[in-house]
């Protein structure tokens, strides 16, 4: 009897570790296999570098899926300059030095034409010196805190003036002047909040409390208590990752609903809502450039394809869309350049327009960000957004906030 148990246990452990390994092996096999079968000249390699394990896997796995889908679309319609695109997938493992190391591996060993990757600003900042030194190219698909514009990076997510700044103006006009700032304790929330504070000072708002909690923090009772005491009009939420789940669940338990105070979030999209529950979040707001419900013909086709490829229960959201269009924008630039060379692609990319699911986008040559439409949405019970405001037209990216007089001090400090 005991021996059977032992056998079963060992078997199950081996099986389990096999499962864990298999995904890594598959990647290897696929790239090795194709190398031997196909001639090197028929394929062009691109790197996909996201966290497929660790705390950020929750968000980044879907980006990988969207990028693979875009690559498949391009391959199915004849490839690029007569070559098939071959993705080389690496796992950044939610660990910033790993991102730098894998980016180096992709550029030096695999000699990829470009990398699509990253989520957190820390991962981008880890990859930045690597792509610059190796004269590589990186497409970074997530909204971020701005104050950066590397010649070797294209930013397909929103910068601050396409997300945070318009959201703050909208809140001041529609919800009230007293702001409560809550964020995770790292670079994005701290930079975002210093921008919000400068903007509020200039536009007549007031910050009553500014709170930071460590990444992965799970107890928000004290923060909520403070909120009850100061009674803000608006909570501006820059928490990231799992903390959002704890924050919103506990906010609801404390009897605070969206009628009492509006929470505006910048890191909660459809994917995150699934893990929190629509009924917990209903009525609260988020600001993005794309929602799954955005009404464009391109989006209808995109959502349908994505669900068909990865399952009916999957949802699309802003970073997923940005990752998807990153691949297509790169392909457009390559076609225009007639070459995979980084410098030529960069030159050709300037001013390219693309009908994205979230509306028309355009690559701004000056800083390699995108012109994007800003959208504010209200979360519904079913976990989808109802758009309540949009900017009407694509907003010009301004990562250093040069066109805002109140932001002069900020960009000086950071440069």
């Amino acid at each position: 009897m005991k021996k059977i148990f032992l056998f079963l246990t060992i078997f199950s452990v081996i099986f389990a570790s096999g499962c864990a390994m298999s995904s890594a092996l598959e990647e290897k096999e696929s790239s090795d296999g194709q190398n031997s079968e196909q001639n090197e000249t028929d394929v062009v390699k691109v790197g996909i570098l996201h966290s497929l394990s660790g705390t950020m896997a929750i968000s980044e796995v879907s980006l990988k899926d969207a990028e693979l889908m875009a690559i498949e679309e391009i391959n199915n319609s004849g490839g690029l300059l007569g070559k098939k695109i071959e993705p080389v997938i690496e796992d950044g493992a939610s660990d910033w030095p790993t991102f730098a190391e894998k980016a180096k591996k992709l550029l030096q060993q695999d000699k990829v034409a470009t990398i699509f990757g990253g989520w957190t600003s820390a991962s981008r900042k880890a990859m930045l010196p690597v792509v610059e030194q190796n004269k590589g190219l990186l497409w970074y698909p997530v909204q971020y805190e701005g104050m950066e514009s590397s010649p070797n990076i294209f930013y397909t997510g929103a910068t601050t003036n396409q997300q945070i700044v318009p959201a703050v103006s909208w809140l001041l006009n529609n919800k009230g002047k007293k702001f409560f700032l809550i964020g995770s304790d790292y670079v994005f929330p701290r930079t975002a909040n210093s921008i919000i504070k400068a903007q509020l000072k200039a536009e007549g708002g007031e910050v009553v409390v500014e709170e930071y909690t460590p990444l992965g923090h799970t107890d928000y009772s004290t923060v909520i208590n403070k909120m009850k005491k100061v009674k803000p009009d608006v909570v501006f939420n820059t928490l990231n990752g799992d903390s959002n789940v704890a924050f919103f669940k506990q906010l609801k338990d404390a009897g605070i609903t969206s009628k009492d105070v509006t929470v505006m979030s910048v890191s909660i999209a459809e994917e995150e809502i699934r893990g929190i529950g629509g009924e917990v979040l209903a009525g609260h707001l988020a600001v993005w450039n794309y929602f799954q419900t955005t009404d464009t013909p391109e989006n209808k086709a995109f959502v349908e394809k994505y669900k068909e490829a990865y399952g009916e229960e999957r949802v699309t959201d802003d970073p997923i869309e940005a990752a998807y269009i990153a691949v297509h924008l790169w392909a457009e630039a390559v076609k225009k350049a007639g070459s995979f060379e980084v410098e030529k692609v960069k030159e050709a990319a300037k001013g390219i327009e693309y009908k994205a699911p979230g509306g028309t986008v355009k690559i701004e040559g000056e800083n390699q960000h995108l012109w994007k439409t800003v959208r504010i949405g209200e979360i519904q019970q079913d976990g989808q957004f109802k758009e309540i405001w949009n900017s009407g037209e694509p907003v010009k990216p301004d990562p250093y906030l040069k066109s805002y007089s109140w932001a002069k001090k900020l960009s000086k400090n950071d440069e």
Partner: protein
Amino acid sequence: MSIFVSQLFNGLSLGSIMLLIALGLAITFGLMNVINMAHGELIMVGAYATYVMQLIFSKYLPESLFNYYYFIAIPISFLVASFIGYLLEKGIIRFLYNRPTDSLLATWGISLILQQIARSIFGAPNVAVVAPAWMDGGLQIFGITLPYKRLLILTLSIVCIALLYYYLNKTSTGLRIRAVTMNRNMASCLGISTRKIDSLGFALGAGLAGIAGCSLTLLGPIGPTIGTYYIVDAFMVVILGGIGGLKGTIIGAFGIGMLSTVVEYSFGATMAKVIVFAVIILFLQWKPLGIFSYRTRALD
């Protein structure tokens, strides 16, 4: 005034959460001396067991019963987690007693494997557990709101402690567990099957982690990596409380809970972490064995 009272309650509530996550570890690490890095993943198993129960209730059973799924989920998550704990003990850990560094590495590996299994089964993103409607809202008292969920967790931790205390002190199996952990050779000479007791003890500790996971679904995220958020706190409580008994764990849990909430209110959450760690380190300088140290007759 009302802020003071509600902060007091928050401290108690955080303490009860700490207690629940540390209770299982107090047995596996405190009593049995296994540095169990997979404790957090056993919490995760409990959380996913609750999620699955919720799915079963919402899909296959009449809606009227959905309100009660949570009461079934508690024993189920205990059973599932303790079964997995039992398998781990039988398959791996029993070969590693008295080799603490090996067990540390082996259980760390197990924790990664369990995380990956969860990711393969349930997917990498978080899942949502819908709490029954009656748990929404809270008790209005002295002008403050005490959320029902937090009251439930507080009650649950008290019930767990009471049952565990009864089990370890009043039943013969419980006494055997304690006898083996105090002096293995002597207990074995007296005819106690130490192997059986070991697996029983480990399964019990794992099951308690499962209950902790079940209760955490009410407050926080449910994903493959949730164990990593709680494992450090759990070890902190057990080490502060003193290895070898439950009394220290209880005092350690509520002490850390209270201290964190008080410090967090004035200095913010990041500083609270720093200060709590500093206080614990200083305390351990003064009392290296924790709040309560237990003398055993074992020759070690």
